Every structure is written in C-alpha cells, then in structure tokens.
C-alpha cells in the first residue's frame, strides 16, 4: 500500500450517515500528520467522505480507492490530519 496509515476505522456493513460519523470520531483522536484509513462498503461514502474532508479545516483527503474484496465492493479512504 502506498499510503502510510496510523489508524483504521472499519465501517463495512454500515450505511449513510455512519461512515462519516465514525470517520469524524476516529479523526478527532489523531494528531497532526497522522493518517486515518476508512474501510467502507457504502458506495455513497466516496462522495460523503470527500465532502466531509473538504468542509473540515484540518482534514485532507489523500486518496480514495475502490476494489472488490471477497466478492463485495470495498471503498478505502485516506484522510490526513493537517494541523
């Protein structure tokens, strides 16, 4: 994997709005420079987490990946705390 992550939050099997809420909860525990990986199965999380990161001053969305794992679509998001 290209992105070094500090923490991973697994929200597989959870639909809107939980991926964003769990992301925010885990993100608050990071310190500047650390990166959170969010693993979701909700396809809406691609747009939702992007929107959340854009509106959150100290969050930068480094990458979003979509892959098929064990026959289901999995969306991975990498959010860095910038300050």
């Amino acid at each position: 994997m290209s992105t070094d992550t500090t923490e991973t939050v697994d929200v597989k099997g959870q639909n809107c709005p939980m991926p964003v809420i769990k992301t925010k909860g885990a993100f608050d525990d990071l310190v500047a420079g650390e990166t959170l990986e969010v693993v979701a199965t909700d396809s809406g999380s691609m747009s939702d987490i992007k929107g959340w990161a854009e509106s959150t001053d100290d969050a930068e969305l480094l990458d979003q990946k979509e892959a098929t794992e064990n026959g289901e679509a999995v969306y991975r998001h990498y959010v860095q705390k910038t300050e």
Partner: protein
Amino acid sequence: MSTDTPRGSDAELSTEETAELLKRIEELETEVADLRTEVDEDSNKMVIIATKGTLDMAYPPLILASTAAAFGYDVTVFHTFWGLEILHEENSKDLKLSSVGNPNMPVPNVIAALPGMDRMTTRMMRGKIAGNDVASVEELIETSLDQGVDLQACQMTIDLLGYDEDDFYDGVTTGVGAASAFQEMEDADIQLLV
C-alpha cells in the same frame, strides 16, 4: 468632515485631510479584523424542527443532525407534536409507516386502508432498513446524543399528549418551548422544518 464630499478632479488633499483618511483606514482595518475573529470564533449552528412521527420521517432529522455534528456544527433538534414520538424511548422502537395517502406504496389506497395494512407496510420497511445496513432510529438517537446534538422535546406537546419527562431517552432536553427554539434558530446558519 465627511469623506464622501464630491471634489473636483484637480483638488488636492491637505496634510490634515490625508492624516485623517489614513487614521480612518486604520480604524476600519481594525474593525474588519475584529469582525473576522468574531465570525471565526462563532461555530456553525443548525436547528431542525422535527414535527413528524412516522418511521420514514424519523430518519431525515436524525441523519442530518448527526451528519452536521460530524461537520463540526452545533446542532439542536426541537421535536414537537408527532416528532416527540422519535424521542419517546418506548414509542420510537415502534414507529409506523402510513400506507394510506402515500403514492409510493405498491398498493392502492382502498386496499391500503384495510385493517392491518400499516403493520404490514411497516414490517416491509423495517425489513428493507435492516437489509440495507441502515441504522435503526434508536442507534441514530444514541449516535446523535454521543456527538453532543441537543435533542429537545417541546414541553407544550409533552403536556398535550400526556407524556412524562421520564418517557424520553436519557439526555433529551425537556422544559423547552417555542421561544427557546426561536432564539436558537435566530443564531443558526441553517434552520429546517421536517
């Protein structure tokens, strides 16, 4: 003197006038900086007035409230009339869907009006909610409260519907009315009636 006095194009400013204008610019810059600090310090705020108590209408206020909290908003949801059902610990687990008057239902109104139809459509909806990984109303209430969302139950409708303050989830604010809701809406960036 007034700074917007019309002048001829050949007019020149005296030293005193220039000094006065520079002073004025400095004052305005300070004022802008102060206002900017004030705006930055004021966190964003959203108020939702929740008035409906059916299963489908319980979701929009709770989803928006918890999402706004994740965006760093201070959120208040003022529940009034049937919106109280969402905060009622017992009733919230048994919210129903109306099959009559809902054109999205797969059955015509004459059939939807038969006894037991609401129970059937509600069961169908609950099945879909669970099957699509959508959180339950109870989970969304707990999540919202954990995030610091202020869930308020309108005192007038508590009395009107004969409820007791203990009937509501722990953490729900009671003893509030239209004036406090209005005051919060006045300060809010987003106000919604659901």
